[in-house]
């Protein structure tokens, strides 16, 4: 299978939404490997609440696209055991907030089975979950809690920011022999972008420079990459050339690329939609602050979700997540222009 170049530049012209890219990756992998199956709530006829899986049950049947009871812990546990015994489950967790119910299965079981067994049992499973606020879904349906998984040895965490990355990273995740948590931002499902028809994968632990720049580095994850790209455009008008770096997987983490970009530009803002405190921005910022210590002109700035439960009221909710304008202004201030 050809190792396609990592950035979108080389991608074929066909455009898909991120949701379609996810579906295509699943369909291709299910055709390729009969052990791959999907389980979760309303994944079959309903194609999930976000309709991302539409059509899969028609092609692969209810045995491979399995509607479950509302038992996140139970079916995640079943996925762990099925993976150990020769299948390749892809678990669908409708809203990332629900991971509160499955941390034991993911952290005490899935993440540790390989190590505790001295390398004898494998858990080749993928957990697909969503993140992202501003859908007016309130405190229990809007969180981005991926930092919890990033903290746990034995897990890997992928966070695509484009349809291209979504397809390539998900295929890698499904072929991995370890548990992988794959995050999809609900707000990006309709985002369009070029996606090659051919089979390609994107290796984990390789960051992608979504936009090259000289004056400041914007390290962003998932939908915040789009925010950063928007801010970069606004910065152009002020002759500030921003580099946008997307780690693509938070674990494994491509420290080298992050640090090199930081050394080059000497100014860094890290943007992630998880809660700011003790979140992903803290790890990324401290890795960069340590690795580029002698080259930084200013402290690494972190931008994450405000440290409050996510409110329902639209004007309040909008105030909790980093926006293009906020990133633009922060970057401008940092560059002293």
């Amino acid at each position, binding site marked *: 299978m050809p190792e396609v170049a990592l950035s979108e530049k080389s991608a074929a012209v066909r455009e898909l939404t991120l949701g379609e890219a996810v579906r295509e990756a699943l369909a291709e992998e299910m055709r390729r490997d009969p052990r791959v199956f999907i389980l979760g709530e309303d994944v079959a006829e309903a194609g999930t609440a976000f309709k991302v899986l539409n059509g899969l049950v028609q092609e692969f049947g209810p045995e491979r696209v399995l509607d479950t009871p509302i038992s996140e812990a139970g079916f995640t546990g079943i996925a762990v055991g099925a993976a150990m015994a020769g299948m390749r489950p892809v678990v669908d967790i409708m809203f990332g907030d629900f991971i509160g119910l499955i941390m034991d299965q993911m952290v005490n079981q899935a993440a540790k089975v390989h190590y505790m067994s001295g390398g004898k049992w494998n858990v080749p499973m993928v957990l697909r979950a969503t993140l992202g606020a501003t859908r007016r879904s309130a405190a229990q349906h809007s969180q981005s809690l991926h930092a919890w998984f990033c903290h746990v040895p034995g897990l890997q965490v992928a966070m695509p920011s484009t349809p291209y990355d979504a397809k390539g990273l998900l295929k890698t995740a499904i072929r991995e022999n370890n548990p992988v948590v794959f995050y999809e931002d609900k707000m990006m499902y309709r985002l369009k972008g070029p996606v090659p028809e051919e089979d390609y994968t994107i290796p984990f632990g390789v960051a992608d420079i979504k936009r090259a720049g000289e004056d400041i580095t914007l390290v962003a994850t998932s939908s915040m990459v789009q925010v950063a790209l928007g801010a970069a455009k606004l910065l152009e008008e002020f002759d500030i050339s921003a580099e946008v770096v997307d780690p693509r997987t938070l674990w494994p983490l491509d420290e080298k690329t992050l640090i090199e970009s930081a050394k080059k530009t000497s100014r860094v803002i890290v943007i992630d939609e998880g809660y700011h405190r003790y979140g992903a921005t803290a790890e990324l910022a401290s890795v960069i602050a340590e690795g580029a210590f002698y080259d930084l002109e200013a402290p690494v700035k972190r931008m994450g979700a405000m440290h409050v439960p996510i*409110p*329902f009221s639209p004007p*309040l909710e909008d105030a909790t997540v980093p926006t293009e304008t906020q990133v633009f202004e922060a970057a401008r201030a940092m560059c002293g222009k």
Partner: protein
Amino acid sequence: MSASETQLWLRMFRQMTSIRLFEEQVNDLYTRALMPGLAHLYIGEEAVAVGVCEALTREDYITSTHRGHGHCVAKGAAPDRMFAELLGKEAGYCKGKGGSMHIADPDTGNLGANAIVAGSAGIATGAAFAAKRLGNGRVCVCFFGEGALGQGVVYEVMNMASLWKLPVIYVCENNLYNEYTHFTETTAGDIQMRAAGFGVESDVVDGQDVRALHAAAGKLIERARRGEGPGFLLVNTYRFTGHHVGDIKRDYYRSNQEEQKWKTERDPIKLFTDWLLAQGVADRAALDAIHAEVKAEIDAAVQFAIAAPYPAVERVAEDVYA
């Protein structure tokens, strides 16, 4: 029929009507894009909330679900502040911070709607625990849909409620669907036997018959109040509309005939109306008058909510910590 009984029946009629009209307005607000987020309507299930809540005191507790407007109204909340909450306005019960899926109101003992399926099972059981320890004679009703039977925590807390004889009643609203999946595809065995396996007294009742609900719930509630332990009430009902307002195309998971049959033959308000008239509890004019009153109240409530201001952005950081 005693005057108090007549009053009770008419109050139930009023409450069921309030819920129906409230939800019709929600549907309207939502389709007019005036309401943000998700809206899960209770239309078709009105008798459940009303039959149960009319057997409770104002001080008694309830916990509710994502489909919680009906429980909230039935427990005594005011439509104007409810609508304000649904629109994210400062005047809402939760200052707009909770929204449709999180309305709570201490004044009416409403511990809150919950957007985690079965998320309130622990809270309800804990409130009953507190009531018992504090000896204040309260009970707590935990409303949840049959989909919540998939969550193990329900059995964990039923076991403890049973061991500790807590005054909590689990009201399972079986409207046949977990979102877009028929409950028989997600629920094995026998629901009442599940409760019995954990030593919880159970009963089953027609969810479209408000009087039957009131009687069945009353029995379990008074039993719990007497300190004889928790109850489980299995309610057979149906949601007349989509899982949420956006769920328009439903034929892939349930037939139009099925919906029509329930709407025409099993509408809880229509059934109750027929009974009220047949019994001569009230005549058509009296019921129409109540309906008109309620409609006026609901319309005014909607106008209030639409006109009400959003919270100031600075409020976002308040109420994180007490």
